[in-house]
């Protein structure tokens, strides 16, 4: 609309006038500032990589790729390997993504698609987002004191009746993959729910109306029109949630059991890169610093890779969706 109106010549009393020198300079400096801020982030990231990579380099040369494929971590004999940590990081995050991600999208649909009246939906949304404000260590304590005792009977029942299924092949002693996964799911839920809700809200009303106009039911409209349209945003929320899960430290260090094993079992203790770093670093001797930095690089690379792949897939899928 603005394009069709003719430019009004500058004159006294007109709303339109050329920018003053101040506004021009203001605009310029704002642009410079945003450019600088953007650049700073890139530089910062490169600096972190360079700094950690530099400290990790000797260990990388010494241990090479076998560092990534062995499970022993024994500073007394200088054997270092982080396969169990990589496995635990990816496995716990992946499980959390399935549960927390699914739940988060469901919550987003529930709160945006008119199942509730607007005010109630707003209250619910607030509550879900408040989960993000709970400190990690509180989640850890909640896991130890509430969650583990609550799930123990179910876990031992599953192990006793279905021990041949790999997921239930061990007994839940207390801390382990399962409680860690549940807490992680809850922790990524607000991220997934909030961003998915924004994606759903961004869908123009006319698309939903068009769907109803075609005679779809509410369920069909959500499944066949709304979700595909919002898929880019949903995917972004999942990538962010996954990234959050990969780096989560404190709650996992308290709940996952910190045992260097590679196991499919949900009830067996496991460990993650972040909890290895957090728990070993403070008292690490000189021979451990290098391997720990190497592990940090591995975590950084995994997190970056997930985000980059996510972004690529997102930009690919968003081209195909309705806008």
């Amino acid at each position: 609309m603005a394009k069709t109106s003719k430019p009004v010549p500058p004159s006294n009393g007109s709303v339109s006038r050329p920018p003053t020198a101040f506004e021009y300079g203001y605009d310029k400096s704002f642009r410079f500032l945003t450019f600088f801020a953007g650049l700073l982030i890139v530089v910062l990231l490169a600096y972190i990589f360079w700094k950690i990579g530099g400290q990790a380099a000797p260990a990388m040369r010494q241990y090479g790729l076998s560092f990534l494929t062995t499970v022993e971590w024994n500073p007394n004999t200088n054997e270092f390997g982080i396969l169990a940590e990589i496995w635990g990081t990816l496995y716990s995050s992946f499980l959390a993504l399935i549960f927390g991600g699914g739940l988060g999208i469901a919550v987003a649909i529930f709160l945006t698609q008119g199942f509730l009246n607007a005010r109630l939906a707003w209250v619910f949304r607030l509550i879900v987002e408040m989960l993000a404000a709970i400190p990690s260590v509180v989640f850890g304590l909640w896991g130890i004191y509430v969650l583990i005792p609550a799930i123990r009977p179910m876990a031992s029942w599953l192990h006793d009746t279905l021990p041949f299924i790999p997921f239930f092949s061990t007994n839940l002693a207390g801390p382990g993959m399962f409680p860690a996964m549940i807490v992680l799911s809850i922790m990524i839920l607000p991220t997934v729910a909030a961003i998915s809700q924004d994606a759903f809200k961004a869908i123009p009303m006319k698309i939903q109306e068009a769907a109803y106009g075609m005679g779809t039911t509410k369920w069909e409209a959500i499944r066949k029109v709304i979700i595909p349209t919002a898929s880019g945003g949903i995917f972004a929320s999942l990538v962010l949630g996954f990234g959050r899960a990969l780096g989560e430290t404190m709650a996992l260090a308290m709940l996952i059991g910190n045992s260097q094993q590679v196991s499919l079992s949900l009830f067996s203790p496991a460990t993650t890169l972040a909890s290895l770093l957090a728990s070993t670093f403070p008292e690490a001797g000189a021979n451990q610093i290098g391997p720990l930095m190497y592990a940090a690089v591995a975590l950084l690379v995994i997190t970056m890779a997930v985000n980059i792949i996510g972004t690529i897939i997102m930009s690919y899928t968003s081209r195909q969706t309705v806008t």
Partner: protein
Amino acid sequence: MKIGNFSKGAKVAAVAVAMAVSGTFAHAADTSLTGSGASFPFPLYSAWFKDFGQKTGIEVNYQAKGSGGGIEDFTNRVVDFAASDAAMNDEEIAKIDGGVVLLPMTAGEVVLAYNLDGVSELKLPRDVYPKIFLGEITKWNDEAIAAANEGVELPDENITVVVRSDSSGTNFNFTNHLAAISEEFNSTVGGGKTVPWPKASNFVAAPGNQGITATVKQTPGAIGYIEYGYAQQTNTPYAMLENQAGNFVKAGPEAGSAALASAELDANNVAFITDPKGEQAYPIATFTWMLFYKSGQDADTVAALKEMVNYGLTTGQTMADKLGYIPLPENIIEINKKSLEEIGG
């Protein structure tokens, strides 16, 4: 009324400001010391430093970042003193120009806390508890445990072994003790601040003394090792352990002192009592050290450090028992007082 309150408030504020200002001046004139290192003695040290600061005006800032971090800071000379549960090894000592003075300042015991319904007293023989921590004994009603605990109803329950996930001095002392009394433990797991525990589903690791305590308390059938002071403060039951002399001993100040009495300090004042002798000695006891420079500091700092150590060796020792530490035996205090003179400028 209002005005009265206001002027009262103003007076209070003025006094507070005056106190704050004079306080700052007073402090500025005094020496302050910085230290970092071991977290195990931190509850005791912080009690010392608070009282010491009030009495002498010498402020001691101590950061409990861990023994490894303390030694690192000490080597880089960013602190006036450091603390370590594992003292310093020869390689680390060699890095310090002018030499170091290591002083054992207090000592602690490590207990095996357990969670068994209805079992208020548990005896663990010295050939049994290493096997539990090797994952070889996995049931509470195992014959080896039952034989030592006649009359105790041991449940048919799995043992969940809770170990430290973080690198720590407690780990160092506990695993070195197990390695000293069990050849098998020594060859498969070994002693150290971080050790490769058996990879079994009944082994879980938790961070810190508080992490192990919480996990043991929440897990039926669990056993884990924690500092005596933690067990005491949290009312966690712990086992009596069989010592070298064959007696079952409960951790406490007397049993701890008995263990320390057998220690023979080397030229650097270091001794690890991995398997103490003595009829009533508790088997897992350890010193923890403060580290000082022999040279390279100004006279004021040296004087303040000496005053601090003197305080720790006298008044400080009387606080140890209440906070779960073992007061140092007389002979160790004497050795410390002699070594103290070596701290120099």
